[in-house]
């Protein structure tokens, strides 16, 4: 099973280093150091780690905003050189156009890719429905709650039909209940679309609940601490979060992060 999957890597990070150079002072921050990992087609990956350990940097490198200072990332065996139509991202910070309604915001990605057709319009409406915003198509972002806005972001990222979906703490602004609801929705959407997904979160139980594998990152410099396979049956219901096996994963990852944080003098939030 594992060997069959390994022959079809979706994404490979090889000897990846990312360094930020301050333009004014010339000083350098090593954000990521020697990241080696492989993600298979259709996998759901979660990344956890203390704040500042380079999770966003990693996604920004995959989306193509940042050039590695060493090593490379291969997507479908091709080196990533910049943004591409095969990827889309749900950002940590809100990024909807305030003067566009929900429908036009969701269409924004395909519009930029010059793919506005009756077909993509239909897909957009389907995703709006899928994220639970049917009836809000003509509302403007300021008329939506933070959680609803984040769902618009998700629908927008899905509408371009990426083969790799990147999500940077998409649910961090949500209340606990909406968050759990969205976790289930995301899993449902993922099981329908089978898109390879990389999801950053600070919540360990969220990571375990969603992921096929959890990558634990450590800080200073950002590095991969562990890669944990989550062997919980799918489809997963919320009640799985109370099962001993689930809690064992959470405990284990918690321990890893705590260890990393204490090493760096961080507090675990």
């Amino acid at each position, binding site marked *: 099973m594992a060997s069959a999957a390994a022959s079809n890597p979706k994404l490979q990070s090889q000897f990846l280093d990312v360094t930020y150079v301050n333009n004014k002072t010339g000083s350098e921050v090593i954000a990521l150091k020697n990241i080696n990992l492989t993600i298979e087609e259709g996998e759901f990956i979660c990344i956890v780690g203390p704040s500042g350990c380079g999770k966003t940097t990693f996604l920004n490198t995959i989306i193509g905003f940042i050039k590695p200072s060493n090593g490379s990332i291969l997507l479908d065996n091709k080196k990533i050189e910049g*943004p591409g139509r095969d990827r889309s991202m749900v*950002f940590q910070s809100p990024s909807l*156009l*305030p003067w*566009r309604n929900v429908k036009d915001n969701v269409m*924004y990605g395909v519009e930029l*890719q010059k793919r506005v057709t009756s077909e993509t319009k239909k897909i957009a409406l389907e995703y709006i429905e899928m994220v639970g915003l049917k009836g809000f198509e003509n509302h403007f972002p*300021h008329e939506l709650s933070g959680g609803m806005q984040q769902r618009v972001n998700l629908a927008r990222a899905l509408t371009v039909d990426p083969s790799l979906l990147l999500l940077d703490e998409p649910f961090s602004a949500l209340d606990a209940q909406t968050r759990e609801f969205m976790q289930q929705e995301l899993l449902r959407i993922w099981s329908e679309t089978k898109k390879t997904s990389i999801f950053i979160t600070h919540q360990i139980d969220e990571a375990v609940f969603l992921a096929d594998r959890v990558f634990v990152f450590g800080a200073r410099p950002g590095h991969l601490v562990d890669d944990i396979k989550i062997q919980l049956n799918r489809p997963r219901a919320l009640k799985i979060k109370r099962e001993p096996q689930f809690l064992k994963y959470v405990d284990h990852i918690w321990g890893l992060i705590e260890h990393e944080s204490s090493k760096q003098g961080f507090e675990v939030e």
Partner: protein
Amino acid sequence: MKKDETITLGKFKQTKKKISNSQRNFMISTFSVIAFLILWEVCSYYKLVNPLFISSPLKIVEAAGALFVDSAYLNHIGVSTYEFAIGFLFALIIGIPIGIFAGWNQIFNAIINPFVSALYVTPKVALLPIIIIAFGIGITSKIVVVFLMAFFPIVMSAQKAMSTLDQNLIKAARSFTASEFQIFRTIALPSTVPFLLNGIRIGLGQGLIAIVVGEMYASTAGIGYHLTHAGQNLKTAEMFVGVAVIAISGVILTGMIGLIEKKFSSWKPE
């Protein structure tokens, strides 16, 4: 109106309330203007203030009635309108692209910024003597003054608008492989509109000042010219007709900007 009916009841109520609010405010404004005119008339009638200085609303209306059938006066209005329209139009079609480009391109901005910043704060009427020498006392010199006065607020506002773009939006656009031009069209331009309209509004006021001052200083026709002469010959009522024509033009033009603004910001929270 149709649009309001389709949205939720709560929203509809809100809209309805707003309309009655603005109706009320409009009535208060109308009343205050009427009260002012009556007070003015009374002051003049009972000579509480020398009528030579303040004329009176009735006399002004009378003078307006006479002037507006006088083809010479209509010609003055025509000349001023022409000067203003051409000067302001140039300020728009040159100022907006320059401002936007300056906000978009740092190098271009570095080139023009010293001039724009310096001239923005300079009273352009100080340049009038030299403009008159260069362009004569005809309409061209007035067009130039209107242009100069309106140009800088417009450039500055466009430039400022571009420098306050939301980087998060640009990042999102780039992630969808947006080109520079697409970012410009879908993010930069729409974000610019409110700032730009504000600059245009300031430019309008400046342009109207430019017309009057320019025509006062040296000209052979125009409202400012007529107004100055009327004032000097103690035809106060005629002078006030000129003032009213300019004031009403300003109000109408600003109102038009307001309408455009409303159209472009229909998405905005109340």
